[in-house]
């Protein structure tokens, strides 16, 4: 049985040491500050990015990896004769998935599965890390693909942003545009659904917003053992509070904290906190 190798892109926001530990190949997207180009997570760490975002006079833009870049990452794995599973940002948010599919056509390699995760950031990280660990534990390609489908079905992602401004400007606001234009200072609670950002509800006050995130998770996963992956855009204090609340209310078997990387950060702005949650039993098993 060939070894299964997991490929993803930098919008999973998986820290470098973790990628190394689980043997995950990360294809970087690119961030542009004016003329300057950075490879997401390679030339620019999350910390550096948010600093730059504050000081820069130009607003960053992003772009997907080219098929040729994908090819570069796929080739070595193909040469090992690996079974490749390549998990990517929602095709409705980025052209990355399309690029990967084009690359597959170019390399013409049978055992390469390109997956549209329909999500981005921590929920994608959860999918990727679970898959990589299952691969390490010797699971087959088909078993891992079944697990990914299970996660996609059970998993939910809720997050709060400070402002919808970044999402709107980057054109990634999705259906959450319904929440634009409110005169009161409200915190929009959003969720990922069918590959897009959807509005969930509005909350007033940061405290309440954090409580709502956990409450909603609690309502939907009351009696389940769960994995909870948390993320933040340059707000570690708030993340700590969210983690405490989540661990108090949920039956977590694995909790992980990530930070938004430059590409996702460009589109949501600082001040985001959120969580991805998924049922464990019958789904994440390896």
């Amino acid at each position: 049985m060939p070894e299964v190798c997991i490929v993803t892109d930098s919008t999973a926001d998986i820290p470098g040491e973790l990628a190394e530990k689980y043997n995950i190949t990360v294809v970087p997207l690119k961030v542009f500050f004016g003329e300057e180009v950075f490879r997401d997570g390679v030339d620019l760490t999350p910390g550096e990015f948010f600093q730059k975002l504050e000081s820069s006079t130009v607003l960053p833009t992003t772009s997907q990896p080219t098929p040729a870049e994908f090819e570069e990452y796929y080739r070595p794995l193909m040469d090992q004769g690996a079974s490749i599973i390549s998990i990517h940002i929602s095709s409705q948010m980025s052209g990355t998935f399309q690029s990967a599919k084009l690359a597959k056509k170019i390399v013409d390699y049978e055992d390469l599965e390109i997956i549209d995760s329909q999500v981005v950031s921590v929920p994608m990280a959860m999918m990727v890390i679970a898959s990589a660990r299952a691969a390490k534990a010797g699971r087959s390609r088909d078993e891992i693909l079944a697990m990914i489908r299970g996660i996609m079905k059970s998993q939910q992602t809720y997050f709060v942003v400070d402002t919808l401004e970044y999402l709107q400007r980057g054109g990634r606001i999705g259906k959450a545009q319904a929440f634009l234009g409110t005169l009161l200072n409200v915190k929009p609670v959003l969720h990922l659904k069918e590959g897009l950002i959807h509005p969930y509800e509005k909350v007033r006050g940061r405290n309440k917003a954090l409580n709502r995130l956990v409450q909603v998770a609690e309502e939907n996963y009351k009696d389940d053992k769960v994995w909870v992956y948390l993320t933040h855009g340059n707000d570690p204090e708030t993340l700590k509070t969210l983690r405490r609340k989540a661990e108090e209310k949920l039956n977590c078997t694995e909790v992980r904290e990530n930070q938004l990387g430059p590409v996702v950060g460009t589109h949501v702005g600082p001040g985001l906190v959120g969580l991805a949650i998924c049922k464990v039993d019958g789904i994440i098993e390896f």
Partner: protein
Amino acid sequence: MKIYSFDGEDLKMMLVGSVNLLAKSKAEIDALNVFPVPDGDTGTNMYLTLLAGVKEARQVEGAAIGEVAEAAARGCLYGARGNSGVILSQILKGFADALSGQACAGAEDVARAFRMASDAAFQAVADPVEGTILTVCREIAAAFENLAQRYSDLVRITVHAYKQAQAVLDRTPEQLPVLKQSGVVDAGGQGLVTILHGIIRALKDAAAQQDIELFDLAASQQKEFVETRAKDYAAELKYTYCTEFIILGNQIPMGILREELAPYGDCLLVVGDNSAAKVHIHSNHPGLVMECGLKYGALQNVKISNMEEQGQEMRSGPKKNGSELGVVAVAMGEGLNTILQSMGVDTVISGGQTMNPSSEDILEAVNNLPFGNIIVLPNNKNIIMAAEQAAKMADKPVAVIPTESIPQGIAALLSLNPMEGLEENEEKMNSSYQDVVTGEITRAVRDSQAEGLEVKEGQFIGLADGRLSVCGSELAPVTGELIGLMAEEEGSLVTLFFGADVSSGKADGILEALEEQYPDIDFELYYGGQPLYHFLISVD
């Protein structure tokens, strides 16, 4: 004088007697308010509701009592304002149902009609409480039933029933502790007794051969909209342009303004105070109307609409329909209007404390929205029933979220998700609107002792979720103290909406003081522009 049966003409005459007496007594009934807050409007609401019924009844030609009663009930149903108005409309509905098809009614018929009226009133209230209009209504029915067994002269029966009803009313403070505390009888009950009293007066006047004219206060009253729009535009439209604006000025002479504007059209309404007056009129010369307003200050929120066009649109039916969701909310104050609209409200009906919109006002707003499903936020305890009545009359699905305050309305709007349907939204909004504590700061309208506080007329008072909680002579400390009582949790968000009576400089000053006093609380300040209430406060 003895009368053995009433016909339709008699009923019209009696209703006119009732509505006239209510017109004269409404201020006294308004004052029968449990708390010293300026929201007493039971008398006004019952008067306007009955007036709508009387106007409809007088349209009926012919003298069958069943038809007249039915028309009166229909008019009341549409004109119902406030909870007492809605209950009154149900009383008339029960009364009319009992007499359906009859040409005239004898003592036993009238007794039966009052019984059905009482039953209908009880059914209208989810949670009937003794010591209210319901008690009075039931006892009136009982009195008529008893008396009808002994007498057949309706004059005698009615006089006796009136006396018994008065006695029942006088006992309401024994049944309802809040009434006793405030030293008042139930306002709705008083309204009903007044209606009975008016009937007796009409009967006496008739005996003295006096014709009674309908005493229509509405057109000259401040806080009343009656018949702002005619039913059939094509047939009845005399004036084409509905003209509305607000005048901001100093010492606006409301009375003179009203007199000056009256010749330009009909449905004239001038409300507000001498620093901000809202003008509404149907006229063929909106320009002249505005010129007239300009003499007294700056104009704002000018709105002129061609009612002929509106009428045609209404007749041709909604353009957009289907499953889309519209939201109607009730509020007073331009700041609040704008905020609500920014949160997804499609139509804001002007109204609130002391100015309750009628079921018909709400129904009209619901029907005019080009959406297939409507959510209504009454934002006032006393508007919920009228909204529910409107929901029943509407020809599309309407969900009323029983919000009792603007902060509750805003809390409900936070969970409004336009991507989802009516039912999901109704469920979410119902479970979220009580997530806030509502605070109100106003002035006491009279001396009072309640909740262990000694309140002097004119003092500032603070209410937390409708309970009188603090009082004092200065606005800032009363506000501070109330917030101390309301915001217990660290990290709470307190939102202040300042009213028309507070300058933005003063509001900013109070905000600064509050931030100093409560460093662990987040504060936000917005202009609400609401009358009477210096601050509306939301604690999230």
